[in-house]
């Protein structure tokens, strides 16, 4: 049984603690290590490793301290170069080449974001649970089988964004970037509809935009669409 705990989930920082009861992992380290420690009641010694999707600060700010504290950080070569870190604890991985960390088998895959070499992760464990982690991607290239946990970005809704632009709250230029870098509510829905959700137990909507989202509405709409418990940290 997988347990998910969101330590931070926004453009100010992203960090998720997941465990199958045997191997605890961090997905992203986009906040300071101190904060990670605090949010986990200083129970960080068991964390086996950390998976990083890309080089933006809100996803990797805590990486240097993680490394100092002896945690392996897995990321693509492009991401490691863009952050500018190296060392024996930095494990570079390639899309579609699976690896294992403790009781997890992990398959990284390419995602669509305006950075060097961003990745998403599919994680399977011996209990037959399968967790998908995909953030900062304006769509997902693939479909998946037998997912039990979906953690995916749901950044903005086009109608809210357009209203914000019309009202002058958001500069127009931002829209151009958002369209090709972040997951919109509509596209998240299409992704969920394209996948077999039979075994899904939890859906987590991550990284909601401060201005261009509506937590209550996103949760309700995804819940209505899927009939699954939806969490918005």
């Amino acid at each position, binding site marked *: 049984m997988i347990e998910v705990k969101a330590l931070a989930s926004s453009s100010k920082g992203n960090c998720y603690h997941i465990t199958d009861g045997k191997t605890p992992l961090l997905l992203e380290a986009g906040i300071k290590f101190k904060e990670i420690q605090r949010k986990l009641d200083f129970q960080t010694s068991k964390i086996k490793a950390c998976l990083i999707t890309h080089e933006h600060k809100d996803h990797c700010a805590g990486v240097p301290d993680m490394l100092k504290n002896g945690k392996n950080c897995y990321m693509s070569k492009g991401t490691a170069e863009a952050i500018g870190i190296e060392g024996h604890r930095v494990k570079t991985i390639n899309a*579609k*080449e*699976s*690896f*294992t960390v403790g009781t997890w*088998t*992990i*398959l990284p*895959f390419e995602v*669509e974001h*305006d950075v060097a070499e961003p990745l998403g992760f*599919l994680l*399977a*464990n*011996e209990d*037959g649970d399968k967790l998908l982690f995909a953030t900062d991607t*304006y*769509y*997902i*290239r*693939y*479909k*998946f*089988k*037998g997912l039990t946990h979906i953690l995916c970005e749901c950044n903005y809704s086009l109608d809210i964004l357009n209203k914000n632009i019309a009202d002058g709250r958001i500069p*127009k230029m931002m*829209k*151009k970037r958002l*369209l*090709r870098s972040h997951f919109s509510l509509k*596209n998240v829905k*299409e*992704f969920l509809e*394209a*996948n077999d959700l039979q075994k899904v137990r939890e859906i987590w909507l991550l990284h909601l935009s401060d201005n261009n989202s509506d937590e209550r509405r996103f949760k309700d709409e995804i819940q209505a669409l899927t009939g699954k418990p939806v969490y918005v940290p």
Partner: protein
Amino acid sequence: MSKNKQELAMIKKDTVDVVAGKVKQFQEKGELHFPTNYSPENAMKSAWLKLQEIKTGKQDGYRPVLEVCSKDSVANSLLNMVVQGLNPAKNQGYFIAYGHSLTFQRSYFGTMAVTKRVTGAQSIDANVIYKGDEVDYEMKHGKITNLTHKQKFGNIDKEKIDGAYAVIVLPNDQVYYELMTMDEIRQAWSKSQMWGKDQKEEKKGSTHDEFKQEMAKKTVINRACKKFINSSDDGSLVIDHFNQTDESAEEAQVEEEISNNANGDVIDIEYNEPEPEQEPEQPSDQPDDDLEQAAMDFEQKEAQTTNGPSF
């Protein structure tokens, strides 16, 4: 065949006639004035003839756009064209389908036409600066003024372009200049769908390479017009549509890209039994010819290339 004709007549009724009605409303309310030499009816007729011939891309099996695209998108693209006072018969723009939405995209001739109309500009010209040319200008109130450019015929060499500038001459003899270095021009080109992700210079034999001067002029004119039009008038129906043209094309492009690429092959792993899978690589682009039409063709082709990398 007759069924086909009937269907076409229905689409026409739902799009062309609706747009014509809307345009009339705008005119009656005084929100829209056309120059005497522009007939919205004629532009619409030209557009309708063109639309019947345009086919979708490969992904939709080269079907007629009028069969594939939503009526709303057809009507919107026609409205967009008419409000800006453009005519596809004069190469001022073209219609392109992205998935199920049709968009109207202005060519740079169109951009110049709208700029002239909105600002009353007398002329819009551009020129290329070669290595060794003498260029002199002053900055007054943060604006470039009195730009002079002396060129020796021997300096002309497309491999030695230092930059380009555009000049918009206004009715009161005021002049607006836009100046770009070659680096800035390349930066703009690199946003093109035809450029690879880390491409720094134009590829040998590409349109940007072969018609470098024309392309540089086109780029600087486009920038001059877009900046000028947005700074010169405090918003009108025409300017809204001028800006909307770019925006709706952008939205439609992203939508098509997503529907082509998203949620494709299944990838999977089992615990301790990794099964990595391969994805076929996507092909890139190819070049084209002819100088006069090059800029136009290029714009059109660029807009149609949807498999290119994002940025």
